């Protein structure tokens, strides 16, 4: 089945699978970030800026035309190939050869046992996870994002309720979003998250 868009498997193209770009990215690309980061860290032995390589990888997949996206096979496969290329390019650029030479077989193994996209039916767990991330934020960030995301208040309304300047509210939103991204998709937190997702609670035949 092909719940999350035209580009997730390629098999649903005939029914015209389409979705908003940001939602598509959230459902189909971002879910692989913890695994991609782990892969890039291993590949570069921790000597490259993984976030920088990832920005390259993401810019590649975002630059594809709709039509090209239909032809790339699985998103996960594309991301890992692009990650590998980005790592090699970077190493060549720096004229060093620190890369572990992973064979294609190893690469495809990494690609195959990945987490399935998020499941709609797990909305409950998703909310708990997001609430936990919110609780982990610095106090002001947490308050501002609570008013913004849970109550849907505007920047001005938040500034009035908390008695802080509007540009301060914006700064807290900015910092809060980055911290949430970090806790949801990077490092230890991201790893833990990833592990939890790798054990599918529902089904494994994604994207077919």
């Amino acid at each position: 089945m092909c719940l999350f868009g035209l580009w997730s498997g390629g098999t649903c193209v005939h029914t015209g699978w389409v979705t908003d770009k940001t939602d598509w990215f959230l459902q189909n690309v971002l879910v692989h970030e913890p695994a991609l980061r782990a892969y890039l860290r291993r590949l570069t032995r921790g000597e490259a800026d993984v976030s920088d390589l990832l920005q390259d990888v993401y810019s590649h997949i975002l630059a594809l035309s709709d039509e090209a996206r239909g032809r790339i096979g699985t998103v996960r496969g594309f991301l890992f190939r692009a990650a590998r290329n980005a790592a090699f390019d970077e190493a060549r650029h720096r004229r060093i050869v620190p890369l572990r030479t992973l064979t294609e077989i190893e690469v495809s193994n990494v690609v195959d046992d990945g987490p399935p996209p998020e499941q709609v039916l797990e909305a409950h767990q998703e909310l708990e996870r997001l609430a936990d991330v919110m609780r982990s934020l610095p106090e002001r960030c947490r308050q501002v994002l609570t008013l913004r995301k849970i109550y849907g208040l505007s920047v001005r309304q938040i500034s009035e309720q908390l008695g802080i300047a509007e540009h301060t509210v914006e700064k807290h939103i900015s910092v809060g979003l980055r911290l949430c991204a970090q806790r949801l998709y990077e490092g230890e937190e991201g790893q833990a998250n990833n592990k939890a997702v790798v054990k599918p609670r529902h089904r494994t035949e994604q994207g077919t």
Partner: protein
Amino acid sequence: MNSAKDIESEAADWLSRLEDSAVSAEDRTAFENWRASNAKHAAAFVRLEAVSRRLDRLAALRPSGGALPDPNLLKPKPLPRSRVRTTWLALAATLTAVGVGLGWRIISSPGVYERHFTTERGSFERTLLPDGSVLQLNTSSDIRVRYYKDRRLIQLTAGEATFEVARDPVRPFLVQARDLEVRAVGTAFTVRLQRDHTEVLVTEGRVALTTPVSIRSLARDAVAVEAGQSAVADRTDIKTHPVAPEEAARELAWHIGMLSFENDTLADIVSEFNRYNSRQIKIEDPALAARRMGGYFRATNLDAFVSVLERQFSIRAVNGSDGSLRLEPAH
């Protein structure tokens, strides 16, 4: 060249600036220039925008009712600092639990916890009931909740609702939807009122469906519906059929504000969007209405849906004089 962290920081600043409804035209231009100047800028921006989108799901935690926004809704629980404090906290917790228990008993003894929930078009509500059951309301819905000593009575008079029922063998959970009564003890199911029938989708446990005596002579006595089944009840009969997990997931995508389609007719897809948006879409061409397609969209993002139709399906959207949008083949 900027580091990844610098780029991310700039992207986050732009994103939060653009959240403000009063963004100036100069700011917009400056943003577009920034984004177009480097592919990594665009990538970092989309990534954070996606994270922001994910956090939007937190809106489901908003308490119902008109209470003032509480910035400390998700305040972390304080960590106990010492043994003594731990004991004290545990004691306090016990007392609170007893207090809550008593409070509930006192309120419930004459028989009533009563609440009325409604949602407007395009809005969703998720709320925790006093027994721990969870109620999720879809767009344009109306529901009354009354808890008595011997039963939990819910009346759905419009729209669609999902119930995750806390187990309580002494007080069955009864949902009345027009002529239909759904009886559960502890389970999860969704009831949707349609114009000429009512649909019950069970995702966990089982429920029993009955209709009022007047109609019951026509139908069977009580119909059991189990997890993975859906029942359609009209004025004369109740029919059940199996629902695959992925189909159920599609039907319940509204839990996170999304709509999901697979091989559905454009007519059906449009009527779903019309449930959530005040701007209505019309299709007059029958061949167009019968075209089948799939997709995954934010329920309230009509623009994204329409622009996809225009770009990928050779369909034209024409503004109607009454504010509606008419779809027709572009040729």
